[in-house]
């Protein structure tokens, strides 16, 4: 008799539920493939309307592919951190400005002493480990302040990180009174040369994909994002965990600053402007839910690739940069609408 009732309960859901095992990343992957194929097709038929261009492949071009990944790798590094913040149900608006501040401060420790030696002969170059560590510490410090505000004062993350966004930009400007810092030591260029940004981005993405999937840290990150109250009564130290998540996000912005300055051979106070929005957009396109609890670094990487493919594809088709921005904006809105729609579907069940 008990068997019958239990089975009856079991029967109902299974049939309609199978399609839900389909993880959100698959949709993003399909989106990426479709976008690539559209550009591929347009690449072959574009001589129809552009007489100056020969029919050519979009995808079968290693240089283009490496540029695609290369141009999203720095914002991608930020997006890995922002993704974790969003999964806890928060948002980090400060990462772009933190990149600026960390870039200035780190670069000041990476400057070549060649010219300064004319006046102070005893000067030597600092080992490149110094600016690298300082960039990460600067970012982590900013993230720590964000985390402390969000976790302990209960300020909404939007406001706390908005404050940090303005403050960090102020620090970046104040540090040299707006002057750029150039001429790093030769060794410093290692982080940004060639495919190194891509490798750093992928290494960080793989690392945090594994951390989120297989460690206590990841499990608690998702738990807090899906039901903070449940996490609390289950004995998770929610405050300490949020502090850690925001600190990691800040540290990753520091890494992005390191790679960016190393690549550009200069640091300017305006660096990283609006990067936070690109990073958030990558996460959202990659299926990370702004309401928390859902998404993955893998999705964010796919979102970053979609971002890169579209930018590169528009250039490939000779489309004006102004249209690029408009279309990117539309894609972000579509991604969020899609997320809201999926949630509503679930809510109805």
């Amino acid at each position, binding site marked *: 008799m008990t068997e019958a009732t239990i089975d009856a309960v*079991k029967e109902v859901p299974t049939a309609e*539920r199978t399609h839900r095992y389909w993880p959100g990343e698959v949709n993003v992957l399909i989106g990426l493939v479709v976008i690539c194929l559209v550009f591929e097709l347009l690449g072959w038929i574009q001589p129809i309307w552009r007489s100056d261009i020969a029919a050519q492949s979009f995808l079968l071009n290693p240089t283009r592919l490496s540029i695609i990944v290369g141009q999203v790798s720095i914002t991608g590094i930020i997006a890995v951190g922002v993704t974790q913040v969003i999964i806890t149900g928060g948002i980090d608006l400060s990462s772009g400005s933190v990149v600026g501040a960390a870039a200035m401060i780190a670069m000041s420790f990476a400057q070549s002493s060649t010219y300064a030696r004319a006046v102070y002969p005893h000067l030597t170059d600092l080992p490149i480990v110094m600016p690298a560590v300082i960039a990460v510490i600067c970012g982590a410090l900013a993230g720590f302040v964000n985390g402390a505000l969000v976790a302990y004062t209960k300020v909404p993350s939007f406001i706390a990180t908005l404050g940090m966004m303005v403050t960090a930009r102020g620090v970046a400007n104040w540090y040299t009174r707006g002057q750029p810092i150039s001429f790093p030591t030769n060794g410093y260029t290692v982080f940004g040369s060639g495919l190194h940004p891509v490798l750093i981005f992928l290494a960080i993405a793989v690392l945090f994909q594994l951390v989120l999937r297989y460690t206590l840290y990841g499990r*608690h990150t*998702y738990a807090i994002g*899906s039901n903070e109250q449940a996490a609390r009564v289950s004995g*998770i130290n929610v405050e300490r965990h949020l502090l850690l998540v925001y600190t990691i996000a800040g540290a990753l912005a520091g890494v992005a600053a390191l790679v960016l300055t190393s690549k550009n051979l200069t640091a300017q106070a305006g660096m990283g402007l609006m990067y936070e929005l690109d990073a958030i957009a990558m996460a959202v396109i990659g299926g990370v839910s702004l309401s928390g*609890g859902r998404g993955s670094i893998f999705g964010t990487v796919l979102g970053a690739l979609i971002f890169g493919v579209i930018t590169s594809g528009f250039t490939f088709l000779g489309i004006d940069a102004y249209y690029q921005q408009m279309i990117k904006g539309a894609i972000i809105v579509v991604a969020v609408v899609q997320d809201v729609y999926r949630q509503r579907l679930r809510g109805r069940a």
Partner: protein
Amino acid sequence: MSDAERSIILRTEGLTKHYGGVRALEGADFELRAGEHVAIVGDNGAGKSTFVRQITGVERPTGGKIFFDGSEVEFDSPIAAREQGIETVFQNLALADDLDVPSNLFLGREERYFNLGPFSILNERLMLRRAREALTSTAVKIPNLKNKIRNMSGGQRQCVAISRAATFASKLIIMDEPTAALGVQETAQVENIIRTLKARGIPLILISHNLRQVFDLVDRIWVFRRGQIVGAVDKDKTHGNEIVAMITGVKQGSDEPEAAFV
């Protein structure tokens, strides 16, 4: 008396909770014996949930004492109560919707391979196996344990929440309206879990509005009314009408004369 020999697991003396001027709970003397299943019944606002919030550490009582497992306790958080072996199934379930069944069962006490602080690697295989055992021992059948809670029916969610409590509760389980939002079949399943707890000898405090359920499941019924305990009766020595009379104040413990005519 065999009853007197059995040890008392939980006892409160004059437990009182005031919210400002509101006397939500006044001088509650309650006791629960080892292995005993009791129900707390009463009208809305009778103080049932307030009582539970005091003994599970969600709130601090205004006055009175709580004795648990032989010694006086003061829980300053639900976690403190949980560490003493009290598990509570809250009305709002306290499950993380985006996690699967084993993750929810072990939330906050995950099995890990080795301790690296927050970056400890989870022993998912062990958690999955123990989750399966836990669900088997509470007779819960959930087709796919890796499915997220979000995708489950209300009954399945409630079963997961109760299984979690049953798995980790060593001394006491408290359930606040566990079947309030469930359908007939799902309610039957939850009631079956409660029976398995009885068989395992784990004491239970059940808060319920459903008198049929109360008479089916528990040994003893505590009736709350207007913030006070108006009586406790053994299930076998009473009947539904008497309980209803106590709940409404027609019988026993009614100090307001007008209540007698309700």
